[in-house]
């Protein structure tokens, strides 16, 4: 590898990884928002994925693909537990229940000997990297784009617009809500696992409420008309702090202003384009 490229990759490695991981997190948020639910547990799901994967790698030395699988299943289980009771309720309640999950989980990580408490887990071996992160992101994007243009995508949008009417058409509301939450938890868990294995160190406070809010803002800034919006939002919000580095103290001020202005002037997100919902050309039959 030529030296300048090597230097470039080294300098921006964390950023390049973070873009991909945050893109995945934004997609995990998108699945839930796309059917009109709101979860603030994405950070918790991510943390669970990160811890489970790190422990399995460090303590048991399991092979990476198996570790990733486990890192997706554990948050899926947590999503089932926290999602089921709130299915009957409006989105706000799921949001708050997931905040609860996040806090309880954080306190568990802090108090447990196994997870190293507040000191976190360090020395997680580097595994995966560019290919696994961006491969997952691309796969997830394609999958979401395909699903959006199918019966499932239509049912999800129908639920977001009018849950009652969607139910009257035979859309199994609890199954869809729970399914979306579980898929979203799996994606967040995957993102957490991938991230843990490129950053070598994780600690409970990385997955708190602030992180949850940041993940939400990825999706909202980008817009949820298509799965591409949230990824765009994630890229912008990940790059901003780095681009604005010279502003030092006023970095967060500018960051905040951008969010405020974007919402006021583009309430449907930066990428307001709504993806078509049919899986084939909708022209008149010949």
């Amino acid at each position, binding site marked *: 590898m030529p030296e300048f490229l090597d230097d470039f990759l080294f300098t921006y490695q964390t950023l390049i990884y973070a873009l991909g991981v945050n893109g995945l997190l934004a997609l995990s948020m998108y699945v839930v928002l796309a059917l009109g639910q709101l979860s603030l547990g994405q950070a918790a799901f991510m943390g669970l994925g990160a811890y489970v994967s790190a422990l399995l790698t460090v303590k048991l030395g399991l092979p990476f693909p198996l570790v990733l699988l486990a890192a997706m299943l554990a948050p899926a289980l947590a999503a089932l537990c926290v999602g089921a009771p709130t299915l009957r309720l409006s989105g706000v309640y799921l949001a708050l229940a997931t905040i609860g999950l996040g806090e309880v989980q954080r306190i568990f990580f802090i108090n447990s000997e196994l997870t190293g408490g507040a000191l976190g887990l360090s020395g997680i071996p580097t595994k995966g990297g560019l290919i696994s992160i961006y491969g997952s992101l691309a796969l997830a994007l394609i999958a979401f784009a395909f699903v959006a243009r199918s*019966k499932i995508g239509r049912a999800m949008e*129908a639920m977001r617009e009018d849950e*009652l*009417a969607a139910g009257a*058409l035979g859309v*199994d509301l609890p199954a869809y809500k729970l399914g979306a939450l579980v898929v979203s938890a799996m994606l967040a868990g995957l993102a957490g696992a991938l991230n843990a294995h490129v950053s070598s160190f994780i600690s409970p406070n990385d997955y708190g409420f602030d992180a949850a809010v940041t993940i939400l803002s990825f999706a909202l800034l980008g817009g949820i008309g298509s799965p591409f919006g949230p990824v765009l939002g994630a890229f912008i919000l990940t790059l901003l702090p780095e681009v604005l580095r010279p502003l030092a103290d006023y970095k967060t001020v500018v960051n905040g202003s951008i969010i405020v202005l974007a919402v006021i002037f583009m309430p449907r997100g930066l990428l307001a384009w709504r993806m078509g*919902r*049919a899986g084939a050309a909708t022209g008149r039959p010949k």
Partner: protein
Amino acid sequence: MSAPRLDVDCLTVRFGGLAAVDDVSFSVAPGTVHGLIGPNGAGKTTTFNLICGLIAPTGGAIRLDGRRIDALPSWGRAQLGLARTFQNIRMFNDMSVLETLMTGMHANLAESLLASLLRLPSFRHAERAAIDKAWALIDFVGLTEAAHRRSGDLPYGDQRRLEIARALAGEPRLLLLDEPAAGMNPSETQALEALLETLKGRGVSMLLVEHDMRFVMRLCDQITVLNFGRKISEGSPREVRADPLVVEAYLGAKVARSLEAPP
């Protein structure tokens, strides 16, 4: 007489101590239009919601083609072939007319998650068939020009048609119509009536809650009249409008007379 499509048997629901629907029974024969009328507050909307599955009954049974459905949630009933429209139109505003109709086919569109992820031929065929069917429905309800428009932007009358078409898209066994003519003027009502007549001609069974008596009397084969949560009369339009109980509680002498005069 053939087995009933919908059979409502001793249906009762209480809110607190109050019986909003009290021991109501009626049935809808296949291919017929059944009217459910009564004064405001008589329990029509509650009965309607009980049949759709938005409220759980306190007692009694509801059967669709002989199968108990009263324990199912609304989507479960929809999957078995119960479709409905809403009194206040509920559109999927951002969807095009065509997409709305494809959404209406949800319950009997065979697409697995795997097939849509992999874009298998089975998925493509299902989608193409759905689109073709949607076009046929669009033409049928006369929304051809609006097929690609955002459904939230359509005028009221068109939204009403689209809502009915959306309900029909699932090829329901029974169509529940909640005051479809509300907010329509006589000419629009006539157009709606024509549409429903055509459906009836195609053998679609319907249960209709409506206040426009001319509309109800012309369209319905059988009518059930509720008052204070109880059934007070049942029969053909002619029988019902002649029933003094109905005249007293609901129609009023003037309307009853005007209905008897041939239009």
